[in-house]
């Protein structure tokens, strides 16, 4: 029996440990460090219809137990991903969640349709929550009506399992979550980064060229956990926890709060094997306690 398997709608994952979009490239970059196919899955860097160059430097900056990034969704574009990356991932047996991003509903649908026709894509994760681009992105994720419109349009266009990534900057994140659930989302992933800022006091200006950047890393964890807790209480579809997870104990907090799976993000920069270690730790914990991941999910809610 696989103690670690979890069910996310129609998709069964071998285990609940995934890697977060933008922190794991297209999955192949980590090949030298460990066998990526052993993870529950990987979420790709956000893919857009056309390739994007991204923001000018500086794009990143370390902050206490955290970092800021304003990458600006630089990516190879959906076409190059399907041509150059996906065949290798497929051959390696990697469970691929394609994270996609667009500034219009039409573009979201176009990218989804392109990926929907490709074997080897196991689910889509709609990024309606990127704080670092001026058009689209976060606008969709802040407003329940817009979020539902995008989710519904993609839902009608493709059969793939559909995950929607929540923005902590939504005024009423529960309302956005419910709107996405009603519009046909199979799961919610939470959270994306929160906008932060840092100023270089010697240069007397913001360190990031974009002025603000998405705040991620261990310092984000308590906020992410609270939001995941709220979402689990508000929707029936699975919630996948993201935010500051570095160790298996961090991951367990999210599972106990009711998350069905988790994503390791910034921690992979500190330690490229972080996700693998989180998985090993969860497996050992289940073994020790003679339990399964499914039994652990939501235990702290009793």
């Amino acid at each position, binding site marked *: 029996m696989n103690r670690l398997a979890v069910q996310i709608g129609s998709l069964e994952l071998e285990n609940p440990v995934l890697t977060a979009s933008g922190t794991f490239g297209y999955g192949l970059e980590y090949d030298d460090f460990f066998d990526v196919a052993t993870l529950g899955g990987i979420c790709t860097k956000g893919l857009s219809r056309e390739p994007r160059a991204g923001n000018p430097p500086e794009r990143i900056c370390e902050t206490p137990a955290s970092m800021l*990034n304003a990458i600006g969704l630089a990516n190879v574009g959906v076409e190059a991903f399907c041509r150059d990356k996906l065949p290798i991932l497929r051959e390696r047996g990697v469970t691929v969640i394609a994270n996609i991003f667009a500034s219009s509903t039409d573009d979201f649908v176009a990218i989804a349709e392109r990926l929907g026709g490709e074997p080897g894509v196991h689910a889509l994760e709609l990024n309606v929550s990127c704080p670092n681009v001026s058009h689209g992105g976060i606008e969709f994720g802040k407003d329940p009506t817009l979020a539902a419109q995008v989710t519904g349009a993609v839902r009608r266009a493709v059969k793939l399992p559909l995950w929607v990534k929540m923005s902590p900057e939504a005024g009423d994140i529960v309302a956005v979550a419910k709107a996405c659930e009603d519009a046909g989302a199979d799961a919610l992933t939470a959270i994306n980064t929160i906008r932060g800022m840092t100023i270089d006091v010697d240069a007397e200006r913001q360190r990031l060229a974009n002025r603000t950047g998405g705040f991620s890393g*261990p310092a984000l964890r308590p906020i992410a956990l609270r939001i995941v807790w709220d979402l689990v209480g508000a929707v029936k579809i699975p919630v996948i926890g993201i935010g500051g997870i570095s160790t298996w104990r961090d991951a367990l907090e999210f599972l106990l709060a009711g998350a069905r799976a988790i994503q390791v993000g910034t921690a992979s*920069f*500190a330690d490229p*094997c972080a996700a693998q270690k989180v998985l090993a730790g969860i497996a050992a914990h289940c073994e020790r306690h003679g339990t399964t991941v499914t039994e652990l999910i939501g235990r702290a809610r009793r």
Partner: protein
Amino acid sequence: MAPHRAQVVAPLLRRESMGNAYQVLTFDVGRDLGALPGQFLMVRGAEWGDAPLLPRPMSYLSGGATPTILVKVVGEGTTRMARAEPGEPFSLIGPLGVPWRAPTPGRRAVLVAGGVGVAPLLFLARTLSATGQRPIALYGGRTKKDLPLDDDLALITDLHLTTEDGSRGQKGRVTDALGALLAEDVEVFTCGPDRMMAAVAEMCARRDVPCEVSVETPMACGYGVCLGCPLPAAGGGYIYACTEGPCIDARRIDWSRAERAPSAGGAAS
């Protein structure tokens, strides 16, 4: 390039102080990962916990089974490294990035170093020396305290030192001394502050002398994942310092857009 990169946890073998703000750290990796001059590694204390969070990119000062790095204390991460005691475990990810291009036969190498930028150039000088070549080196700093490892460089190069305050060598900047050396049969390898490399690159371009730079940017991953290390590319778009650099033909960079905040710090500190 065939990636042989790996993550190893290795104890600090030795730490040697090079004056006030510079330290040479030697790690006991136990096997040779094949680092070449110009390549770098991502260094993080295995016991740092949640902060400092990101590993720090560091050029190899030497490779082999006991690789060394030269650390300049500029922020929290480098402060921790500068206080580490032998035996303390470090996570090392490397070798990463593009090494120095192979020197062109028939051209004499001119190495232009600024401060801590001396590390990849000293590594290069040592490999040149091993094949019987003696490069010219220009090495500059603000004061005589900003010229770590100058003695090592003096042994294997024809060395010209410059300091801005005149406390050592010629008073002025490396670029003041460079003009006279830019002959037809030389090529330049340079590493140091952005402003210095930009000036060196421009002088070389004007005189049609090949110039290879080793760039430094903030980095979160070091292997092409975070996309946090862009440099403006000549002709538009960006070059990623960790995968397309750090050693790169100076003409591929748009130096007019490459000015960054003076204490770029952040992930590079």
